[in-house]
């Protein structure tokens, strides 16, 4: 048995083990590699940065579910920290029922950390179903979609919501989603109402959103954990995103090596078999 046959027959559990080791080791031996910021992330940061303090609020729609949590939660935390640091008011809502608990834990956690007051600096609207219908509805009147916040307080009794009627009073809406909700915000907030929209999506989706970014339909785009890491660098508060980049680097290298090794062994095996077939003939 030649080397390539042996290599190609290796039990896949060895590969699983290699991945396991590659992800764990950087947690104990951090490489501290620098993260460089790219344009789509800078675009979203600038859009948030340009919102005047204590004025019209940022709308943050936390539309992700637990399945994409490690990619999207660091984005939510970074954006909330950025907004609260700048004294920008934030409306938090969700279009995914599982987003309820996740949005609540994100906004409450950051608000506590940065001493923000509910009702004055932020408001949590909770969940509303139907995706396109509520996104369109917010363009007519926020009160029609959310007559009250998640805890049953009527919007008219929330100081922060005074004079905030619809998209006309929202300088920027950001959606964080691991599913088509991000696209729905472009179709139903950006197109009919001209609302400025930014998006944070999983890396799986990110490449498909470049046409929207290029056509100016998105103010900025965060793609996956790397996008979150860049945002953390911009607000100078490094957290889980940046921390994950070391392991990410190591595993990417490992996977490239696996692809190259696999192909080399495969082609060596194929040419040897061809040679044998020729000799037999």
């Amino acid at each position: 048995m030649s080397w390539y046959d042996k290599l190609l027959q290796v039990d896949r559990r060895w590969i699983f083990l290699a991945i396991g080791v590659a992800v764990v080791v950087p947690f104990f031996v951090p490489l501290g590699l620098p993260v460089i910021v790219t344009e789509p992330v800078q675009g979203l940061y600038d859009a948030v940065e340009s919102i005047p303090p204590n004025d019209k609020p940022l709308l943050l729609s936390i539309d992700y579910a637990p399945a994409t949590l490690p990619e999207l939660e660091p984005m939510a935390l970074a954006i909330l920290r950025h907004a609260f640091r700048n004294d920008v008011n934030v409306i938090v809502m969700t279009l995914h029922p599982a987003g309820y608990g996740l949005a609540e834990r994100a906004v409450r956690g950051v608000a506590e950390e940065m001493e923000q007051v509910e009702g004055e600096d932020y408001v949590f609207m909770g969940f509303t179903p139907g995706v396109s219908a509520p996104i369109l509805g917010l363009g007519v009147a926020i009160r029609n979609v959310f007559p009250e916040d998640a805890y049953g307080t009527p919007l008219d009794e929330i100081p922060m919501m005074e004079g905030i009627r619809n998209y006309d009073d929202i300088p920027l809406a950001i959606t964080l989603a691991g599913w088509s909700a991000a696209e729905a915000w472009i179709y139903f907030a950006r197109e009919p109402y001209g609302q400025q929209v930014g998006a944070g999506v999983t890396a799986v989706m990110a490449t498909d959103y470049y046409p929207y970014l290029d056509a100016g339909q998105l103010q900025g785009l965060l793609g996956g954990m790397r996008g979150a890491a860049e945002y953390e660098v911009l607000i100078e508060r490094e957290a889980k995103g940046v921390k994950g980049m070391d392991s990410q680097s190591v595993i990417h290298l490992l996977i490239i090596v696996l692809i190259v090794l696999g192909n080399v062994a495969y082609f060596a095996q194929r040419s040897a078999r061809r040679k044998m077939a020729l000799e037999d003939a």
Partner: protein
Amino acid sequence: MDRFPRILLIVLTLALPALPLFAQVPPPDIEIAAVDSVAPAPVTGLRAHDYVDNSDAGDKIELTWELSADDAAGASDVVRYEVFRSEIEDAPGDSVGFALAGFERFLDTTAEAGTPYYYTVLVSDGTLLSSPTTTGPVRGVSNFFQPSRTSVLVLALVFFVLVLIFTRLAERGADLFVRRIPGLNAIEEAVGRATEMGRPVLYVPGIGEIDNIMTIASLNILSHVAKITARYETPLIVPTARAVVMSAAEEVVKQAHAEVGQPDTYNPDNIRYLSDAQFAFAGAVNGIMLREKPAANLYLGAFWAESLLLAETGFEAGAIQVAGTAMVSQLPFFVTACDYTLLGEELYAASAYLSKEPKLLGGLKGSDWMKILIIALMALGIVLNRLNASWFVEFFHTQ
């Protein structure tokens, strides 16, 4: 030479009124104290008119005026223009907002359509107000058509007409040409190989529900594959992840056997429901690949993350693999692990080509000619832009 500074001075003076346009807008709550105790001069030429925009329900009224004589000139102490709205003449009414010094425009977005309003503008220097300038009555007009969306309407109508014409033509039995997708040859070759080797064919119709258009397209292709395998008496294994898809697949395969005159060779045990759970399903299909050793694996339909697990095991088992899906994020894995892959729309085209169903053909042909129109419009846009004819691009501008 001494004329130079004078020209510079004149230019600078002329440019001065334009400065506020470039300057940073000061935050409204920081008010500059008046430099004198004289009220600023009022605005002139105040006008109010209905405003048309993308959400115009008659709730927007635009005001324009000429700057106060004291704005950036004269006493140069204007801070802002206060705007008031009233439903009765000669009453100041309520404040609806303000515009900063240097601005000649205000947009009231809180009007009620059809109500007559009087607008009053007062110039403020931070302490004193000018005499009022009033205009009116003006009504917000609710429009019956959104002119900025004409291009959307036109293109949508053209597309719909195309789709409907082709659907009707197909219903009447017109011969609509659709080219043969190379992927179909690949599928037939794979099935042929399995027949030669005397081994079964595995057909996975994805894990989508029955109402997913990819699943429907897949069932059309399954019918074609089942006819070939029935003719050559090659076993066809169809594992499914949805009970409803399983019964639909049973119907399709049974029908195919009947159509080629081999109703007895239909084996219902080969159409199987494995599991609704994604990874459990993938694991069970992989089990079939290792135990029953199909020579051809066909993955056509809606696939999510399980695509990777299926294609890897199939490759390892040495089967010929053909895949097809419109799930873009799964296509890369199929392309690198399968012998041939139908990309995105090719799946639908293959299904329309095989089934000749009018509603499928109508959509396909309509989209095709729409693409030609899009290419033509884009080319025209490039040419006209080059000739500085901006009206064309503006017509398509919707924001």
